[in-house]
């Protein structure tokens, strides 16, 4: 088992456990966990996971299943957003 930090921002923040601070929660993941299994395991709809960063680096949709997550990783996810 490894522990990763999952950060859910903007409208996805509502899916965090109550009492989460700074939009973050710890998630225990098993052997062979990937970004895709983390998203599925947390019950996040794919269409809402528009921008996914692992330790700040962008992970394209088609790489999520092939991107492992390991102890200490920070996975940050946003729905479609804009700004300026």
């Amino acid at each position: 088992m490894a522990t990763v930090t999952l950060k859910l921002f903007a409208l996805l923040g509502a899916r965090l456990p109550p009492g989460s601070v700074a939009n973050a929660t710890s998630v225990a993941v098993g052997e062979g966990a990937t970004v895709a299994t983390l998203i599925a395991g947390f019950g996040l709809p794919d269409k809402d996971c528009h921008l996914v960063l692992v330790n700040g680096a962008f992970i394209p949709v088609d790489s999520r299943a092939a991107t492992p997550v390991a102890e200490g990783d920070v996975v940050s996810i946003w729905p479609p957003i804009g700004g300026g």
Partner: protein
Amino acid sequence: MGWTGKFLRVDLSAGTVKVEDLNRDWARQYLGQRGLATKYYVAEVDPKVDPLSPANKMIFTTGPLTGTAASTGGRYSVVTKGPLTNCIACSNSGGFFGNELKNAGWDMVIVEGKSPKPVYLSIENETVEIRDASDYWGKSVWETEHGLKALHQDPLLRVASIGAAGERGVLYAGIINDLHRAAGRSGVGAVMGSKNLKAVTVRGTRGVRVKDPERFIAATIAQKQVLADNAVTGQGLPKYGTQVLMNVINEMGAMPTRNFSAVEFEGAHKISGEAMHEPRATDGKANLVTNGACFGCTIACGRISRMDPGHFSIASRPQYRDASGGVEYEAAWAMGSDCGVDDLEACTFANFMCNEHGFDPISFGSTLAAAMELYEMGALTKEQTGGVELKFGSAEALVKMAELVGKGEGFGLELGQGSRRFCAKYGHPELSMTVKGQEFPAYDPRGIQGMGLTYATSNRGACHLRSYTVASEVLGIPFKTDPLVTDGKAALVKAFQDATAAFDASGLCIFTTFAWGLENLAPQLDAACEGEWTPEHLLEVGERIWTIERQFNLAAGMTAQDDTLPKRLLKDAAKTGPAKGLTSGLDKMLPEYYQLRGWTPDGVPTAETLKRLELA
């Protein structure tokens, strides 16, 4: 149609007002607002003009879709030569002023000369008068706006005014309309102050005519549906505003922190869009009260905030307890992360000051950040700051300096000269994070490479709103590109610059472009305006606008040497995050950019390019 076909020429020196017909050929070539007003400006004003002299002119300008039923059709711009940059300045604002000006029957107001005493311009449809404003000189924007509404006995009067910052020569003073909407950048408020013009008031009831009303309404309804269906313009912006970016940019390690000495800010989440929704520990209420919309806008990204009444900045000042304009991302970054301040309430108060007294939060925050760095290295002393400890992270210093700059008092006037002049005065020009004299916005070009080229080539000095490649490099709109590479960025920047110029000429808000491209804008313009308006024509108009802005700057004395970034970004690599080890790759992008633009290696448009754009 779309255009009213008429504009005002106001000579403040002579005290005269004239009505003139719009040049229709220029309207076809430059569309309106940023484009058409820039064409008039460059045709009439010597590029070498001192921006704060009576010989400079300023143009309040609308676009053909301003005041129509198109979503976000409330925009106006102010075009002039900027005192901060000595370049062309064009500052765009929302709210309700632009719509009102257009409905009064005017596409533009060209203001010339300098009044011998403080005045305001009163426009009520065809009745236009230059009136005495002595009673309002020295008053804040908020006092002026309330006072003029009371004087005219008209709560629906729309007012664009300056505060003491503009009167006293703060070089990044802005013009504020509707209490907290700003033509904020490049010092257009200082130009207004130099003319002794305190305010422009407008009441317009004439309506705006379009070419084919039935087709126009159908087009605007269809395009509003596109905005509503899009997750960004339909959900993200209304709920979080631009402030949703605070966590994004920080998480990806592109958050300029403490005057760009770091790329991640540990306090970012405390001043983020999400934090604005969270109940405060002190009073259990959230900073954000509601969102707000400009005229005709179906996105409504505006932030309306109410401060913690117990916060030190307002505990003894109940007049700041009402809800008012809250921080947008750029403001929260400049006065927050860039100064190392993680106090959302202090940033909100400083933002109130920017609106109350009329100055640009980006340039202010960025200049303060440079001053804090100078202070911490000992190049600036407590005696020189008027007794204030200008340390990174000090919310007290932020609050105090925001008031001093706004009122144009003491050390605030020094900070009001902007970061380039300020850092030069204190012996460290290299600490000024500016391009062409204008302060950077909230994206580190080491972590978002396209923004380095965007800043370096922006015609109004460092700016994110001239080509917002963050949309592509971070948010994946219209397609995702890698923020850490330079390949392809020259073409991306050029495409964004040209399309943005076309949107800025239309009368609509650039934030529609999270859902729309030129193919969404064109059918609305085509139904509203004479002539044929296709996406291809609009792109050509955008490129033409960009080119005449460039030509003006070159004639004003700028050269390719000015298309650069501070050494810190070119030589000092990012120390953390995904961009660790990277500097800005400007040298890899700039030659290709010149080539794509049809410019010489010295950044000058070739004769062939000018001919292609009907400029020679």
